[in-house]
């Protein structure tokens, strides 16, 4: 046996020979998520730099710190909803690994529903800021940084919901057998990443004054 062959292991899902013991698809998702750390790191850093650069909502008024405009109890509930969606996602992965297709679809639907609740909350929050409090995207550097950071995260959640619904439909058509459980796991990795990013955003943007 050659040295190369000695270090290779077989990916159980696809029968591919890989030098890491991980399938190419799963490795690719992890590389993508590692690169996403840099994207969100940039957006969070920008917010930290600009967070104090606020302007009055009306000419001549007082420039309130950003956090005084936030509804912390509301956002806390949204954060809890997103955390629970991570639990339902991991239960969906667990279900398909057992061959429980009905369980997979149920937990995928719950995850997509919780994600939709989170996004709806974000829309409501943005609506309140823009129309009631008068803080739009171009109001001040602090608000621009806030909208870009949370907006990018919201876009990631929306893409995640589309992926969940796609997985749900594929499962309905019988295209996700137990042997393809890793496909659901890869969607789950993306979803959990969106959750861990929010864990940071919630603390840095909303809780730290």
């Amino acid at each position, binding site marked *: 046996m050659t040295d190369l062959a000695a270090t290779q292991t077989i990916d*159980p899902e696809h*029968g591919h020979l890989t030098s890491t013991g991980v399938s190419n698809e799963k490795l690719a998702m992890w590389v993508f998520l590692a690169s996403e750390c840099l994207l969100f790191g940039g957006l969070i850093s920008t917010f*930290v730099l600009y967070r104090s*650069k606020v*302007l009055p909502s009306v000419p001549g008024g007082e420039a309130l710190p950003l956090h005084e405009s936030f509804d912390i109890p509301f956002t806390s509930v949204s954060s809890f909803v997103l955390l629970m969606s*991570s639990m339902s996602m991991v239960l969906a992965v667990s279900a398909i690994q057992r061959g429980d297709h009905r369980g997979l679809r149920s937990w995928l639907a719950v995850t997509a529903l919780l994600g939709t609740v989170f996004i709806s909350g974000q829309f409501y929050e943005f609506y309140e800021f823009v129309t009631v409090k008068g803080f739009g995207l171009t109001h001040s550097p602090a608000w621009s940084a806030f909208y870009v950071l949370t907006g990018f995260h919201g876009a990631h959640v929306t893409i995640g919901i589309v992926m969940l619904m796609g997985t749900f439909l594929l499962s309905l058509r019988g295209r996700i057998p137990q042997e393809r459980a890793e496909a659901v796991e890869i969607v789950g990795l993306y979803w*959990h990443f969106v959750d861990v990013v929010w864990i940071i955003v919630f603390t840095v943007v909303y809780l730290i004054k």
Partner: protein
Amino acid sequence: MSDASATLESTGHTGTGTGKGQSHPTDKMFVQVAIALGVITAVEVAWSYLPWGDATGLMAFAEVGGLLFMMAIKFVVVASRFMHLKFDQGVLSRLFYFGLLLAILVYVATLTTFEMWSPGSSGFTPSTPFPHV
């Protein structure tokens, strides 16, 4: 029977890798982790409502440090349990945490460039005011 299928049958592998030799997590464990995350979030929010006032020095360190500590715990718990890093091959942990460390170092350097840590600094001030200022 091919070598690949032979290995598959012998390992009985159905999904998540167990490259670290950890036992496979159970649904009960996932629910317990979710409850713990919910509790930590509640403590975090309560912590932010404590009467810190305009905390400075040690109090500011306690306020911000406490929040960052709880945030880090939640991050690691989700990554290790829900994302299976604790149970999967070590290469995935190394890959992800290296990317995270790189991001932290890059942006700490960036914030340092903008004198974020200087006393009295409250962030980046543009050299020219924005048009509507």
